[in-house]
């Protein structure tokens, strides 16, 4: 039963998103003011166009907030359920770790090794595969990509110690 419980309602999600738009629009307006959003002698200043863009974002965000407050029954519906959120996090968190593994200030694993680990983790954790399936698939896919990008199309991707050991850097 826990799984079906809503994390937040549609109304809250609508309000948060519109609030973010409101802040973003205000930020755009503020920065455009700083640059000058008026008419200079030689034409419109740098902030002239963005200022009105920001203004339109603020106005529409306000309208969305007004609508969200009057949503009625639909506003009580679940934006996301706990079970769904858990599924999304089991994908999002490994993805974030994966991107961090490719290159970070302390250690560069390179995109090929990080991707192979990422695919292997996914197959193990979500697919419950045996290693006899995981190893050939994860390594095979990345070897294919390696040849495609580094050899055929000559588009260099981030590489780490393993590629260096084979003479690619």
């Amino acid at each position, binding site marked *: 039963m826990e799984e079906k419980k809503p994390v937040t309602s549609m109304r809250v999600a609508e309000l948060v998103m519109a609030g973010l738009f409101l802040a973003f629009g205000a930020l755009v307006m503020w920065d455009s003011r700083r640059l000058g959003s008026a008419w200079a002698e030689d*034409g419109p200043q740098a902030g002239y166009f963005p200022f009105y*863009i920001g203004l339109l974002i603020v106005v529409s965000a306000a309208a969305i907030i007004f609508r969200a407050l009057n949503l009625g029954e639909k506003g009580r519906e679940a934006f*996301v359920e706990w079970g769904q959120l858990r599924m999304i996090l089991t994908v999002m968190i490994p993805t974030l770790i994966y991107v961090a593994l490719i290159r970070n200030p302390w250690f560069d694993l390179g995109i090929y090794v990080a991707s192979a680990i990422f695919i292997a983790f996914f197959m193990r954790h979500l697919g419950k595969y045996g290693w006899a399936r995981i190893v050939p698939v994860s390594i095979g896919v990345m070897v294919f990509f390696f040849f495609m990008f580094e050899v055929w199309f000559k588009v260099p991707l981030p590489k780490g110690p393993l590629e260096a050991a084979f003479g690619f850097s």
Partner: protein
Amino acid sequence: MQEIQSLMGGFAIAMTWFNLALMFAGVTLGVLIGVLPGLGGANGVAILLPLTFSMAQQPGGATSAIILLSCIYWGALFGGAITSILFNIPGEPWSVATTFDGYPLSQKGRAGAALTAAFTSSFVGALVAVVLITFISPVIARFALKFGPPEFFSVYLLTFSAFVGMAKGTPFKTIAAMMSGFALAAVGIDTVTGQLRLTFDFPELLKGFDFLIAVIGLFGIGEILLTIEEGLEFKGAQAKLNMKVVIDTWKELPKYWRTSIRSSAVGCLMGIVPGGATPASFMAYGLAKKVSKDGEHFGTGKVEGVVAPETAAHAAGTAALLPMLTLGVPGSPTAAVLLGGLLIWGLQPGPLLFVEQADFVWGLIASMYLGNIVGLIVVLTCVPLFASILRIPFAIIAPVILVICAIGAYTVHGSMFDVWLMVGFGILGYVFKKLDYPMAPLVLALVLGDRAEDSFRQSMLGSQGSLSAFFANPLVGTITGVALLLLFWPLISKLISLARGRSSAG
């Protein structure tokens, strides 16, 4: 018939072995992209765009590059029908209407007939739209050569107003998404004054937001997250497509010539307007249901119910390239990515393209004819292969697609920051989808932002800051007027229905 002559020249350019091989590769990749969750026409083309950088630098290479990318687009358009019919999962938004009769047909064991009907009518729709492009676009381009900055800005205004006017939900969400696209496009160095805008001293923001990153994240990661949330498992009908079924279906199809013509017309008209493919497919389905004498049986598995939306969607998807080529205004996110490709390869989209890069334009138009023929052959012969790809478990397909998105984002500028940004756009895409914010206006605004702003500034300079520039002559005044009408259409239609309600009550 100067167009025929130019077209023949185009065929001469497009009909090299290398370009034909690219067409086959592009269409096959495109169908694959259209079939896979998380990859569609827009982000598929966006991911593959960086691979064409070196190709486009060779002489005539830009034509080969656009042939490859546009064929991926045709392939993706074909591919959307496969998942709709076999798995009841629309691969692309404009394939939703195809599921109405396509999936019931495949449940009745007539998947082959549904697929043949879908592919053939896609082909017919595309062909009508390409003929339209062949003969209309030179006329529009010639006409648009006289355009100055105010005219161009009014065309941009028309494009973006169309999004607001045709929005399904509240127009404010469309405006918020669109204006955020414009704001993101403004980030970085202002090309006119050289000032830094919206960078807040972050060196990463100096070069601004690349729309390719946004497209890959919004459409790719966002889609994967939505799929995972539904805990989706593919359960589909078997796909067998033998020559006998194909020929039997082809014998049946001419009966529906009225539906084909009607749907092609709807598709071409709606395709020129941005975001038109999806409404076009629904409109064509609705019209066919209303007009056909078999109408009440629609939804139970009628071949005609597949013909109508597929013809319209493919006609609209193809016609979306018409404003892209002639005016530099893309009609769909995928057309926007193709337009971005032109800019990256150093070509200036717009009316001058027809004069300065005639080889490129006519090569592309000729390749549309050939690419769709190639596409029809590929999909008719390879359906079992593509359907088997959908049987690869999600636990393998999902991480591979995420890896492809990461690689695609990195290759745009060779920057890890872009990969993080792509993940961020992915989360945004998920929230956008759940809260019914449209993504296409954001992408189009991000692509066109700088050009729209430039034309706005130049018009303002010409008129010394007076908005009267957009009503200065009948041409620009008409375009602006239509744009404003579309922009306020949600309000106007509400007022009309209010007035009607009152008169009928009183």
